[in-house]
């Protein structure tokens, strides 16, 4: 059983730092071999999880949720009231979505999600977090210089648009609901979902009109 002993944890970190190979691929290979030899997992099981998070669980799930919120006002109400419950309609609940909240962009509000203390992310609807989301650069600056961060992503906001930054310090997770691009009245839910970028659901993308133009 785990010890909850912080001194011991520090000592183990130091021992691993001293004794493990420096190259990540070698460390992970040794870890995998050991766990398989001990009968704790199998190569096939590891492959299955990788495939699940490469093919099925990813931002296309989030995009389907957003697209439905654009075409179905009743679903939108349920999503804004209790996103954790609303995504069960798709069977998309899972890792880190037990307390999901949806936050909506408007003409006057832009939402941006970060986890300054670690890298909390709603895995089951957005998949593996992009590396930039986990970097010191993003985590340090999103709460202090959100407009500067957005500029680097190509998002230029007028001064009259308020930025709302959501720092995921508890088990709540945030999903940004981007604005529906104009001129998309003729598109169905599936076509609309193709316009929704991963970054727009984190808040580092805003205007999906350019996506709409590419598709039309």
């Amino acid at each position, binding site marked *: 059983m*785990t010890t*909850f*002993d912080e001194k*011991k*944890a520090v000592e*183990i*970190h130091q*021992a*691993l730092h001293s*004794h493990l190979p420096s190259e*990540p*691929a070698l*460390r*992970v*290979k*040794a*870890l995998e*071999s*050991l766990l*398989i030899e*001990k*009968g704790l*997992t199998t190569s096939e*099981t*590891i492959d*299955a*999880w*990788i495939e699940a*998070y*490469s093919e099925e*669980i990813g931002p296309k799930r989030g995009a389907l949720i957003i697209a439905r919120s654009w075409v179905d006002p009743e679903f939108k109400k349920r999503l804004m009231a209790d996103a954790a419950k609303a995504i069960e309609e798709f069977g998309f609940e*899972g*890792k880190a*979505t*037990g*307390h999901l909240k949806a936050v909506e962009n408007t003409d006057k509000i832009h939402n941006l999600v970060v986890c300054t*203390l670690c890298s909390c992310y709603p895995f*089951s609807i957005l998949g*593996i977090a*992009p*590396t*930039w989301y*986990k*970097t*010191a*650069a993003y985590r*340090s*600056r999103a*709460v*202090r210089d959100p407009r500067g961060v957005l500029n*680097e992503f*190509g998002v230029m906001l007028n001064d009259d648009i*308020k*930025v709302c*930054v959501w*720092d995921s*310090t*508890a*088990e*709540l997770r945030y999903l940004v609901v981007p604005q529906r691009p104009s001129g998309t009245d003729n598109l169905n839910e599936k076509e609309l979902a193709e316009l929704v970028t991963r970054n727009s659901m984190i808040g580092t993308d805003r205007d999906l009109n350019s996506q709409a133009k590419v598709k039309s």
Partner: protein
Amino acid sequence: MDGIHDLGGKQGFGPINVTEPTEPFHEEWEARVWGISCSTGAPGITIDWWRYIREMTIPEDYLTRPYLDSWSESDMVTLVDSNICTVEELATGKSNTPRLEDANNITVDQALEANRMSSRRFDRPSNADPKYIVGNDVVTCQFTSTGHTRLPAYVRGKPGKVYAYHGAHLLPDAGAKGEEIAEHLYTIAFNACDLWPEAHDSNDIIFVDLWESYFDN
């Protein structure tokens, strides 16, 4: 703890690599880390103890090693701490003890179902009434636990306003010690101009989810 992980507002980092490929994994070993992490784990650990272990990573490693590599190292700490394996075994990749069990293979469909079933809730009943209601002014503590806490340094000793109330949730400071304490959780709105000197004319808002014992008033 006042660790290297507490990055909000620290200066000198950047710019951000915005041209990263969109694939979920950029290296084969990253994918393996994810698959290993999803399929194994030390029994009895809490998410808070795991995060605390992650925070105790050697600071230079925390800042310089690839994220999922450093993340995997925290998993290794939990395995050693729980006597599931030794540092020597992790270094060699070879087990020093006979196999005690056999893991089953799972299919992609089973992984998807296991993922769906892994949604967890952290709210718990509480006999105490919440001390604050939406709209109340609060001031955050200057100090909290010396161990694990989820009150970031950049919002300590700061004025904020209760934006939302979420019921009582498990307190991470206790969870990191293996204890279950339910405490009222709120989303607090901080004005950027109250946090950063350069933001004096900003209307931007930073929302942070904080527990009741993180407030002074």
